[in-house]
């Protein structure tokens, strides 16, 4: 028997510039501004990329095991995965996120206006309505908004970047006849892999406890009416980092039960690659062999 240290390189490789950009925030407001600016920039860049996707992937040599992509989603995936190695993402993906961060850096230094949700609970408690025969529906918080470079002009408010508008343009491109009042299946999914790096908590003298994740989540709240979903993947984190029980959540609206969280996904399963041990045919020697046991448990 030998003691050994195994070097654990990660795959897929990190989008280092994006990670570092998110983790620079020193205050809660800066973290929220960065999150909103990043999402604005991302939706602008994704729309531009999809509008020129065939030009973008022209000349890419496909790996021998992959078919030519037909769907726009598969074409975008090709752009995001081509040339990726253990040490770094492919050049196309790095260029894409360089472009996103260029826009985001421009956006985040613009004036910001946040239309926060109005907390109705206090008003409701002060009013003290008579006991109804059936419990009233809980009061819904208003939908927040997030805009950058909002300037008052003679014609009213001039907004240069509005998070909902940027996502709306992308949705109109993806879904024919898109109407934000309707419900649609997920049209775009943001996947934040190894997202526990965003969950380190900080305490702000003014705003109290916050993390990069909590502020990103607040920015995602702005677009909760759109068919845009996010998935936070984590290896070393805890489920509570992303989906805490209501009493321990930073959000007051979650603590008071006005809002809830979508439960975590846990159906990855085990033994996907396992060989079937057929009763009467599989011997004890066979099922205890390394070749059989190596295919049990985790798939990778």
């Amino acid at each position: 028997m030998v003691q050994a240290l195994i070097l654990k390189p990660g795959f897929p490789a990190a989008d280092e510039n994006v990670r570092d950009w998110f983790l620079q925030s020193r205050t809660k407001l800066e973290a929220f501004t960065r999150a909103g600016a990043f999402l604005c920039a991302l939706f602008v860049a994704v729309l531009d990329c999809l509008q020129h996707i065939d030009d973008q992937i022209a000349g890419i040599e496909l790996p021998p095991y992959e078919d030519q992509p037909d769907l726009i989603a598969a074409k975008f995936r090709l752009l995001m995965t081509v040339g990726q190695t253990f040490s770094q993402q492919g050049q196309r993906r790095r260029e894409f996120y360089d472009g996103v961060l260029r826009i985001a850096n421009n956006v985040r230094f613009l004036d910001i206006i946040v239309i926060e949700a109005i907390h109705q609970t206090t008003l409701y408690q002060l009013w003290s309505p008579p006991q109804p025969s059936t419990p009233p529906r809980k009061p819904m918080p208003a939908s927040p908004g997030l805009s950058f470079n909002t300037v008052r002009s003679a014609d009213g408010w001039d907004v240069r970047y509005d998070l909902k508008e940027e996502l709306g343009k992308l949705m109109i491109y993806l879904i024919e006849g898109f109407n934000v009042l309707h419900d649609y299946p997920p049209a775009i999914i943001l996947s934040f892999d190894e997202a526990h790096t965003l969950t380190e908590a900080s305490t702000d003298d003014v705003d109290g406890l916050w993390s990069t994740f909590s502020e990103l989540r607040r920015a995602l709240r702005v677009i909760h009416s759109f068919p845009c979903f996010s998935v936070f993947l984590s290896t070393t984190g805890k489920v509570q980092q992303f989906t805490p029980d209501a009493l321990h959540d930073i959000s007051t609206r979650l603590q008071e039960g006005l809002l809830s969280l979508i439960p975590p996904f846990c159906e990855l399963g085990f033994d996907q690659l396992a060989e079937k041990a057929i009763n009467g045919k599989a011997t004890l020697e066979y099922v205890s062999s390394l070749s059989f046991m190596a295919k049990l448990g985790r798939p990778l």
Partner: protein
Amino acid sequence: MLILTLPRKATLQSWAIKYVGNASVSLYEHLASHPKDEDNYARYTSIVQSSGMGKSRAVDELSKTHLVVPLTLRQESKGKFLRITIGPSSDLKTRVSGRG
């Protein structure tokens, strides 16, 4: 004390072979099962599992049929080494490559 590097080739190959299971479909159904009129704070979910469970692969598989924007935020400096006790070197090779 030995310092070993897990075979990167095996991991890369595992991403190239045909996907087994329906976790990617289940993930999409999980997201789609929460319509906008629910009182959700935001439309997000999480997958928290050990390394090697296939989280990233499930999302990659999903991205072949649905638009997924992938971001990997790994900090390479944390959790870089895994301490293990192993038997003969041939055992390690079998365990890592999955071949008998």
